[in-house]
């Protein structure tokens, strides 16, 4: 079985996976025990599985392991206990979680946006998160959390 080397949350990991087409989601969750990212639709449509690959948000449920070339950051690696990412603190401050299943994707997608554009408008935030689905209906709080994290 082929061996794959990944950089995940700043650590080099070596994996033996029988199928190179295995989605990155399963590798991270099942092989590495990283449970921040979640299986939602399995079709890249809901965003619950979002991670950063090579510095950009990516849907890990439809990303074959063989195509992963950049460093991978998951929700667990976004901040530290001592220094949470501003978005993580903002989501706590705004209580922007109902069940929390989508929140990985909301934060990871938003972190990508803020890295590209530190001061987005509300319209830009809405456009960025348009393809991240929340069934609980926490959208307005999520929007407030983003604006808070952006210092707005």
């Amino acid at each position, binding site marked *: 079985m082929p061996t794959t080397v990944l950089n995940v949350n700043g650590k080099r990991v070596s994996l033996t996976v029988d199928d190179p087409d295995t989605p990155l989601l399963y590798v991270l969750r099942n092989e590495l025990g990283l*449970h921040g990212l*979640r*299986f939602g639709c399995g079709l890249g449509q809901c965003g619950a599985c979002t991670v950063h690959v090579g510095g950009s948000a990516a849907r890990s449920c439809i990303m074959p392991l063989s195509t992963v070339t950049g460093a991978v950051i998951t929700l*667990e690696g976004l*901040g530290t206990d001592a220094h949470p990412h501003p978005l*993580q603190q903002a989501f706590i401050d705004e209580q922007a*979680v109902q069940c*929390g299943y989508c929140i990985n994707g909301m934060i990871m997608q938003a972190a990508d946006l803020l890295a590209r554009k530190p001061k987005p408008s509300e319209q830009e935030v809405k456009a960025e998160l348009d393809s991240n689905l929340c069934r609980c209906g926490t959208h307005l709080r999520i929007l407030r959390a983003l604006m808070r994290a952006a210092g707005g």
Partner: protein
Amino acid sequence: MKTIINRRAMLQASGRLVVTFTLPCLWAGAQATAQTKSVSIDRVDALLAVSPDGKVTVYSGKVDLGTGVRTALTQIVAEELDVPIGQIAVIEGDTALTPDQGVTSGSLSIQDGGMQLRTAAATARRAILQRAAARLQRDVSALSIRDGVITDGSGQQAPIGSVVDGATLALEIDKEAPTKPPKDYTLVGKPVQRLDIPDKVVGRFTFVQDFKLPGMLHGRVVRPPSFGGTLISYDESSIAHIPGS
């Protein structure tokens, strides 16, 4: 080889799977074992335990499915027992430890489960004060609980953990036990930070999909490609390479 199996046979072959919602953040010492702990819904010790260090464990048959009831149930117990929210841990849905409070559905966790907890906590509060009265040789009417500490208003104090032993809460729930008047509420009905959010925003929260138990088997629903289709047969050799198949 082509084989037909039905669901019941598959479940029998795979053994009984019991999934619990017990979270790993339990207070050490506050856990009772399944052998000794009551799970009878009419008993205080089925729903509540107080350890010598004053930590309170709530055993809830209602589980938080993402609506925040863990926080709300904690508020109810904290209010009725007068202990700080941070002193309370909740174990949810572990059938060996928690009473059967029925299914978690229909927005009934607070209305039903919460009221059961409230009367249990009220019964517990009265029992704790009676025990403290005997211990401190004071009239029970002179005692109250504030922030987990029993006080007589004149300087005598005792943390609740110091007066409660294994027998104190071994009681039937008394539905007539006096509950706190809503006008005195400081936690119920007030905004409280959700207890689960910090873990959820850093990827540390255990959702039911994250459980990995020893010997756990996985099943997958394979749906028919057309409406109303039924399974006629399947090719067992197509999954022979999957471990455990």
